[in-house]
């Protein structure tokens, strides 16, 4: 028995398929979703979504958003999402540097600009973290803390 999983970011559909289990970074911690799960609506933390089909596992970074669980379908509406295998490590590192410098260059705390910068930095950190921990078959750790 499988459950449908759809991961959609604001600009594209990142993943859609029938899977055995989905593990997502819910507001109250990691949640494993199996078919016939009770309906849940949860916010997502920065973290990793794991999708397993027939022994194969795929990993996605999500930078916040919400997940809707229905007995036959999990819909993940992420503010940003990416397949870990698709992340370009060099570019992610460059983006992290940029974000860090921008943040250090002194924007006013609590302004929209500052919050946007901080979000960018967190996102970059998450992507790098994901790449380094999960790439190339090293798939054994629980999800990262944002």
């Amino acid at each position, binding site marked *: 028995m499988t459950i449908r999983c759809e991961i959609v970011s604001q600009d*594209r559909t990142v993943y859609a398929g029938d899977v055995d289990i989905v593990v997502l970074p819910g507001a109250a911690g990691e949640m494993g979703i199996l078919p016939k799960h009770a309906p849940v609506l949860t916010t997502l933390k920065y973290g990793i979504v794991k999708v397993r089909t027939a022994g194969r596992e795929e990993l996605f970074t999500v930078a916040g958003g919400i997940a809707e669980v229905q007995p036959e379908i999990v*819909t993940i*509406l992420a503010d940003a999402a990416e397949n870990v295998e698709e992340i370009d490590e060099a570019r992610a590192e460059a983006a992290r540097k940029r974000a860090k410098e921008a943040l250090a260059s002194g924007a006013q705390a609590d302004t929209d600009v500052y919050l946007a910068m901080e979000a960018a930095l967190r996102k970059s950190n998450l992507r790098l973290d994901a790449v380094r921990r999960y790439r190339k078959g090293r798939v054994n750790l629980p999800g990262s803390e944002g």
Partner: protein
Amino acid sequence: MASAREMRIRIRSVKNISQVTRALETVSASKVRKAINAVMATRAYATKAWQVLTHVAAQPGRESLHPLLARRTPVNNALVVVVTGDRGLAGAYTSNVIRFTAHRFDSVPVPVKYIAVGRKGRDLLIRRRKQVIADFSNLPAAPSFMDVSAIPRVAVDEFMQGGADEVFLVYTDFINMGRQVTAVKRLLPLELGGEGRVEAFEPKQVSGPAAAYEYEPDQREILDEIIPRFTALQVYQAILESLASEHAARMIAMRNATDNAKELVGALQLAYNKVRQQAITSDILDIVGGAEALAQ
């Protein structure tokens, strides 16, 4: 028949017009491509968001879940957000939206207020003596979510303060280059099922009667976050759909205008040639007549 000189001037002006319309067609063609990319990119998210909203609203006891979901009876007044463009020369694009709006809402027995998005639609609404409470014109060519977020905010405020018991959204759904469909959607309180929505926007019903959700972290917090945001997102998506439709409509209208101008130039040229030939013939006849008169 007009003189040859007049006809030459006429032919030249028609040719000039066809150059302008051809240029506009080319510009619209490139704009429509960008607009389609934008609308396709966000459509998946917007569709899913709408689907989640309808699932939330389908739960038992939706009235008490969130103020934006609560249905009010009786409905004493309504608000309609009408999305059109800022520019003309787009064929029947604007008038289709306004005619649709009038057809749908003129017979409503309660006072209806309007929020106009786009200058053309605003002007037509005002000419029809509608009560326009807000006007959002001159949106950027490729608006971001932030650019349009004021529009849903006005609508939500109006709804919350009791100025409108129902809020509708009228826009143009982009199907393909040749087909755009005017559609209406009830935004607040959220409508299940729905009228006049097309497939692209239609959520697939996943399962039967929806069971109540478990919420994490808690119901209040999550609904407060997603309901206003996803409602705003529907407005954003409607604007993107409308933009793509507008450019497509303009492109088709301009192509037709160019074709018509070409046809007209052909017809005028033929008539002009006839007039010119006639003038030459009568000139020759004059000369021959004169020569013969001299010879006698």
